[in-house]
């Protein structure tokens, strides 16, 4: 019998080693794997390359800066131009203690999808004529230029869904989908935090957002309430 459930977030992270590249699903408060992030903080893993849409915006990823667990981050939103109180990540970035690769959000998810779908890259107009094109190949197709953006994958993906079964099928809730389904396809080990574990068949086959084939570990947790206030 296939059984991918783990007893705790800490158990599910047992083999996350220093230097790992880790994707984190979630968009601000929606679909964010907060329990897995807190377990990663407890674990103390260092030299992490993190990949997430945002850090320091109502997510808990900023806690990984408390003991400098991050070496690099790939994100679409990490540094604010406003005068708002700085996140720990922003402070460490300003001091040159952590590297940042800033990616347009559509390119970000499409690069992850490309890695999961076996594609060689993404050909997009987004970023042409901006700082985002620096160092990248431009390919002309029928007279129009496109940036070649490379697939983005990770050792681990930490994702969040609403419900799961022991076979790893996941059902999402509202805007909690966001980057979770794409990230589930693009990492060697995919760990899903969910609010409920149900029997196979209880998730309507029409409502499975991520088929079990993509998920390696499932852990049930009470959600951690998070929110961003501008």
């Amino acid at each position: 019998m296939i059984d991918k459930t783990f007893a705790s977030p800490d158990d599910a992270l047992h083999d996350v080693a220093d230097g790992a590249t880790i994707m984190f699903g979630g968009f601000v408060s929606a679909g964010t794997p907060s329990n897995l992030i807190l377990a990663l903080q407890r674990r103390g893993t260092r030299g992490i390359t993190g990949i997430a849409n945002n850090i320091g915006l109502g997510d808990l990823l900023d806690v990984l800066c408390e003991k400098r667990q991050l070496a690099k981050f790939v994100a679409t939103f990490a540094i604010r131009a406003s005068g708002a109180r700085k996140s720990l990540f922003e402070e460490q970035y300003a001091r040159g203690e952590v590297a940042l690769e800033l990616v347009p959000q559509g390119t970000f998810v499409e690069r992850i999808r490309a890695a999961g779908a076996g594609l060689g890259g993404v050909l997009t107009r987004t970023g042409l004529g901006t700082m985002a094109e620096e160092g990248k190949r431009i390919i002309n197709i029928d007279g129009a230029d496109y940036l070649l953006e490379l697939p983005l994958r990770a050792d681990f993906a930490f994702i969040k869904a609403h419900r799961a079964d022991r076979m790893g099928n996941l059902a999402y809730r509202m805007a909690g989908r966001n980057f979770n389904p794409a990230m589930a396809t693009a990492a060697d080990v995919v760990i899903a935090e969910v609010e409920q574990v149900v029997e196979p068949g209880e998730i309507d086959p029409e409502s499975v957002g991520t088929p079990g084939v993509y998920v390696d570990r499932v852990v049930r947790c009470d959600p951690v309430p998070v929110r961003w206030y501008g």
Partner: protein
Amino acid sequence: MAGLSRELIALRVARELREGMVVNLGIGLPTLVSSFLPPGAEILLQAEDGILGYGAISEQDFDPDLINAGGQPVTLLPGASFFDSAASFAMIRGGHVDVAVLGGLEVSERGDLANWYLPERGGGSIGGAMDLACGARRVIVAMTHTARDERPRIRRRCAYPLTAPACVDLIVTDLAVIEVRPEGLLLTEVAPGVDAAFVQARTEAELRLSPGLRQMDL
């Protein structure tokens, strides 16, 4: 003091929207547009985090999974749908969003937009801005006409790093409505209490005057 409030800028932008349009509202001033939509018209608001058809911002019963791209709690209208980020940006980049309303730091006379990075603060983030600027069928920039230090934001060339070149179709500020045309910027409307010379004096780029130049109808 001449010039529209932020709310009136949003109101003027809302006048550009028609029933059936799919509209993405950027963080900040553009978000206010949702309060001024033409009553009774079915306009579909798209949020990058994967919602089409959201409604008013509501602080009641905060649900972490039901937010707009600025993290604010929203309501749902009948006919709404959810989808993941790959589908959301396929929608944006594939030309299926009719209008993107974006904030701006600078717009150039050929419609280049800079709205994501402030060199003097050494900061900025891209989010969905580059995708929206490239992918939406029509890009409306809503911003104050000048920066806090009175430096014009509408310039011959942008000094700040670009979000996308030649992407802006319409600029709505506290002072004016300006169309970006192939031949340059066309001043079509001025705010109440303001004339074309007043606007030009606060604009680095050269403005041509529309034969139909008029005061904004608010």
